[in-house]
């Protein structure tokens, strides 16, 4: 076997050992070394030349990037995750004779989840279009799709209960982030929908464990809510004054444009 490949595999083994030990700093160091070594191989994207060891090199490179993705989840670095995923993507789309990876589906699901958490729904759907319909049956991807649906519909309790049914342990990080987003969403909806809520109900809906947490959250995020007599009042008085003013500027603009266009008609 090519000496460069053997060297690389050995480095990779050390990286994996450090990963299992949860020694993330050494992992990161090894990863940078691995990435630099990978640039010497010509058979990888974007060149895609056919060297004799092409398949081996590509499989190795793909494994390295997959582990890089998992590492970035562990160290909770979303930008690194995005970069590594983009580097990994050509290995999935232009396979050129590689065996399908077992980690492909969880990683694709992970990426979808990341887009959902960052509220990039348009990109979520674009990515979804690229998947063949057979992939949609896979539990990892199905999980992300159902989450997105529940999120759009507003059935947030389903979102939170889905946390229990994660198909892969790396998803837990994103579910926690999602919980925070969901809490903000629930707060926004409750503000508009309810006149007032009892403290107990508010605590339950916003998923706090104690009243103090609830009070602290309200003070930080929503200072306009009032807490009186064990009830939380959402400010709604300002909406009830009917707008009697005429949007004069807009009307003037419109009428002027009509006059201008009519003049142009010969």
């Amino acid at each position, binding site marked *: 076997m090519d000496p460069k490949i053997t060297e690389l595999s050995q480095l990779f083994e050390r990286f994996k050992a450090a990963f299992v030990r949860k020694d993330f700093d050494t992992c990161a160091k090894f990863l940078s070394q691995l990435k630099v070594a990978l640039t010497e191989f010509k058979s990888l994207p974007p060149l895609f030349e056919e060297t004799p060891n092409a398949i081996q090199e590509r499989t190795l490179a793909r494994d390295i990037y997959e582990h890089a993705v998992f590492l970035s989840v562990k160290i909770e670095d979303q930008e690194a995750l995005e970069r590594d995923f983009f580097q990994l993507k050509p290995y999935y789309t232009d396979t050129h004779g590689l065996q399908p990876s077992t980690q492909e589906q969880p990683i694709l699901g992970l990426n979808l989840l990341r887009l959902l958490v960052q509220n990039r*729904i*348009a*990109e979520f*759907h*674009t990515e*979804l*279009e*690229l998947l063949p*319909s057979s992939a949609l049956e896979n539990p990892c991807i199905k999980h992300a*799709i159902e989450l997105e*649906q529940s999120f*759009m*519909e*507003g*059935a*947030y*309790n*389903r979102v939170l*209960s889905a946390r229990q049914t994660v198909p892969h342990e790396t998803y837990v990080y994103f579910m926690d982030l999602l919980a925070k987003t969901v809490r903000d*969403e*629930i707060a*926004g*909806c*409750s*503000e*508009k*929908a*309810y*006149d007032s*809520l*009892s403290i107990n*109900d508010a605590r339950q809906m916003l998923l706090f464990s104690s009243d103090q947490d609830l009070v602290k959250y309200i003070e930080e995020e929503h200072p306009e809510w009032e807490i009186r007599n064990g009830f939380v009042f959402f400010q709604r008085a300002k909406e009830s004054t009917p707008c009697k003013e005429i*949007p004069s500027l807009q*009307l003037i603009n*419109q009428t002027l*444009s*009509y006059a201008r*266009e009519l003049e*142009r*008609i010969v």
Partner: protein
Amino acid sequence: MTQDVEMKEQSVPSNSVSSTAPSAFQQLKEIAALIEIGAYSREVRRIVRAIRSTIQLRRKLKASVISAFLNFVLVPGSEAHSRLSSYLPKEDVHDMEVDTASSTTQVPVKHSLPELEIYCYLLVLKFLVDQKRYNEAKACSSAGIARVKNLNRRTVDVIASRLYFYYSLSYELTGDLAEIRGNLLALHRIATLRHDELGQETLLNLLLRNYLHYNLYDQAEKLRSKAPRFEAHSNQQFCRYLFYLGKIRTIQLEYTDAKDSLLQAARKAPASALGFRVQCNKWAVIVRLLLGEIPERTVFMQKGMENALRPYFELTNAVRIGDLKLFKTVAERFASTFSADRTNNLIVRLRHNVIRTGLRNISISYSQISLADVAKKLKLDSANPVADAESIVAKAIRDGAIDATLDHANGRMISKETGDIYSTNEPQIAFNSRIAFCLNMHNEAVRALRFPPNSHKEKESAEKRRERQQQEQELAKHIAEEDDDEF
């Protein structure tokens, strides 16, 4: 020119094939003459007319006619001639003899215009595609494109753009679209460098079609946003562009833009392009459903489209009623149609709209209703329907879909009174959008008026005026007929 006239008179009596062939041959020769005039006077419009006449000829094209035409136009023994003739089957040698006899009786004054050469490539390509010999069509079109790359004349552009179209079509029909992506990009670059606007437009559309074929919406959007844009030269290319744009926007969840593009594409498309209009309408229906508005029945009842649009009609019904169960059954029943149209993922997104519509119906009909009843009416099938219903209603209130409040303690939803709409600004806004649309239409019509290019420079002699009037009559006749307008 005089030689052409002699040629016509000679070949009519000496050609012994069936009576349709001479007339097709004659028409081809007339077209060749048109192209020659157009090339010499550098008027692109004549070439456009030549192409349009070819469309009507398409059905009459037979191998014998084409080989006769090739012999007439191209210097026999030249590279192009031998290459193109190899694609045509050697039919009646008898015919060939007769034709070669008649053509050698006069001194061939063939300047072998490049336009004519590329036109021959186009004819052979159409013939091959009609005969479903796609692999040969691939080879022929690649050769044609290699030839076009060396030419830099505006008059060739019109013919070249048709050539690109058939190039892409032959690859698509054999399933190899991804191969030519690099070539199409290179051609687009060349067309931009040469300021060949029609070629740019055609190639951009072909590239978008290529990307969308493989669902690469991201790359398609990146290309489209960076490519230079200008006033459309060809109505058909513009329609295609609008359709692809609408598709991209739909996937990116920008439904309002998508709706405008798709409806405009459906409206501008010529009446004979039925397949295209059906596709536009399918996507337009889904986008309107996703926006929350229900398309009217007349949309589905348009002539010739009823069968194709039937699944979408049933889908609209389910969304209008707001019944989740019905929606699911319809989606499953027509799943194969939807996946063929690639609208599967969009249908999945519609589930949310079904719930919203159902909720809206409930909120309008009830002044107060318990959340358990809401869950039952919406047929929410989940573990905890009441809590689901509560959060869904809360989100709908926040998004402004319904006007209500929730009472958590009693678990009820209380709808608010809808005020008098005429006392608000709503009518003004609706009127404004309609007025803007009409004025826009008027401006576009004015801009679309075409005048012949040098008309303000020279005084018209009586003869020229007659010729111009005759041309205008012909043009009006063409537009009125719109017969078999090619797509």
